[in-house]
């Protein structure tokens, strides 16, 4: 059963009363909230996601609540709770849905240590994954959103999960987070794409989330092989340009973008080293999305060494 099998009223009632058991990638999240904007976001962007057994095992118990004091009414706030703990300070109520997305990312990145977790967008074609690690502002989510509207499969726009035991990439497709001008750029680039309401004045500026393609959600259990590690950089007016990265430098940059590299110790080192050996590493500069897509589509499969 998928979220779309529930009527709007039924979804809201369940979210409020018992919570829903949402399957995203290999994780089950028990989400409980009576905040309407969160229900709106779930209804719009999570339609294709399966609902898990409500009597089974849950990975993350998440609640979004409004405080029981004056801040419920006056400048209202929202709290993110992970099984009763509040890892973040509260945000304005208007940011409840983005907070759910960020909070769920935190749940994964601070617990799931059977993966090397890289702060990177990751997409797939023909079994090979293109991993795009980059600091905020480099345009990785924009590029990722464009590519998944042109035939690439979304594995994740934020958290690349590399399974430590075999180095394979495990998908965690979730809505794609877009900021500021990127929102309208992708709206124009992919007129059919579905977006959540824009929320302004967040720490990241104005944000909106884009619904992931149904196919990516349906294929969430299909793992991929690291194919290319691409460090993207948006540069106004630049021609799309791909340049090989020396392995040592790519290693350090990749390790820098990991959440749990040092926690994993030797295994973290080995996992990064294997990725660097298996995949081709590039620097990528771009300004026009169509040119970027053309270059990605022409990427040669990595040499199997």
């Amino acid at each position: 059963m998928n979220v779309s099998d529930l009527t709007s009223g039924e979804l809201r009632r369940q979210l409020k009363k018992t919570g829903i058991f949402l399957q995203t990638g290999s994780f089950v999240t028990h989400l409980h909230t009576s905040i309407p904007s969160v229900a709106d976001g779930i209804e719009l962007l999570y339609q294709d996601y399966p609902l898990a057994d409500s009597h089974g095992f849950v990975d993350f118990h998440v609640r979004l609540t409004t405080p029981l004091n004056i801040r419920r009414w006056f400048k209202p706030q929202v709290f993110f709770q992970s099984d009763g703990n509040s890892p973040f300070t509260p945000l304005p109520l208007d940011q409840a849905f983005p907070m759910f997305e960020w909070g769920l990312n935190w749940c994964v990145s601070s617990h799931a240590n059977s993966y090397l977790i890289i702060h990177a967008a990751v997409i797939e074609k023909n079994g090979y994954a293109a991993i795009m690690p980059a600091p905020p502002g480099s345009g990785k989510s924009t590029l990722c959103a464009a590519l998944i509207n042109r035939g690439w499969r979304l594995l994740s726009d934020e958290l690349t999960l590399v399974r430590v035991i075999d180095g394979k990439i495990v998908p965690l497709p979730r809505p794609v987070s877009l900021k500021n001008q990127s929102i309208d750029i992708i709206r124009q680039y992919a007129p059919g794409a579905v977006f959540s309401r824009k929320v302004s004045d967040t720490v990241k500026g104005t944000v909106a989330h884009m619904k992931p393609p149904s196919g990516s959600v349906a294929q969430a259990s299909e793992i991929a092989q690291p194919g290319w590690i691409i460090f993207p950089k948006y540069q106004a007016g630049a021609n799309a340009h791909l340049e090989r990265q020396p392995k040592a430098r790519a290693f350090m940059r990749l390790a820098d973008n990991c959440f749990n590299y040092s926690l994993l110790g030797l295994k973290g080192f080995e996992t990064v080293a294997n990725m660097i050996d298996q995949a081709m590493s590039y620097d990528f500069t771009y300004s026009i999305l169509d040119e970027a897509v053309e270059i990605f589509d022409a990427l040669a499969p990595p040499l199997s060494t």
Partner: protein
Amino acid sequence: MSPSTLVLRAFREPDSLVSLGLAEWDLLLRQVRHANLLARLYTVLEERSLLQQVPSQPLEHLNWAYVVLDKHAQAVRWEVMQIRKALADVDIPIILLKGAAYALAKLPHARGRIFSDIDILVPKNRLNEVEAALMLNGWAVMDLDAYDQHYYRTWMHELPPMQHHKRMTVIDVHHAIMPQTAHVRPDSEKLCAAASELPEYPGLKVLNPTDMVLHSAAHLLHDSELDHGLRDLVDIDSLLRQFCSLPNFWPNLVERAKEIELTRTLFYALRYAVYVLGTPVPAEAINAARIGRPSRFTLFIMDPLFHRALMPDHPSCSDWLTGIARWLLYIRANWLRMPPLLLARHLFHKAFISPRHK
């Protein structure tokens, strides 16, 4: 067994966990996580070769905790070596306390015990040298206002916590195991004199077995927070199980409690370890420890308070009295730390003056 006691079952009869259903595993892991005992549960199951029988989803969470456990053990050893190096010129024996002591003494229950600060005990007359040496090696007192500095340095049994500026690790330097203002003040010289050298680590010592148990008990029963109550009780349970085979351990334990004024503490620790975790304490030891027994009326009040506050701070382990119980025990712990007037002054400052400086 009711859902609230699943976490206790994990430590009382771990073998029975293999029959749990998925929903029960879900609840159990939530409870142990709130008690900071998830990694410990991993080692309990591992020691009994039960991990293979855990269903895949909860096993995945246990494996996540194992990664933390593995890194933690390594980090603790490294940090202690850094501390030993920093204090090499001070030329005093460094006595490790609590988590760091269990880890470096390689006590079985140290594996899976996750903690954040390293605690050491040094002679009071060498405190200044120790603080100076730590500062020269990169540790600094954490950002505290003048009152908090005064609070630690005048009344407490430790320096204000010091943090390393690069590694962000925290060390608590103690000169005693109870505050200078407390009702009972175990003699630090007696503890230091009985401490034993760690053969593998010259220059480092740990408390002797009876003192280790008594310190663990004092920490549990006099700590104002109690947020790791069950974890600390599991410590006591493990220490008792580990040391009970030493010759004359139980009589020595009671005798030592008399010497260092901790008979009441020992009485409570044994009482709740037996009640909550089923620790095997011989009847003679229970009887001998009764010299520390409070009045019937006090016990009538204390039992329900501790039974609630020792459970994980999770809704499934709480009832409508849990919050009140924790609050009352917080008051009690502070009451035991300071005489009434000083306590009133301290709480007044914390309530009305400290917030104005924030």
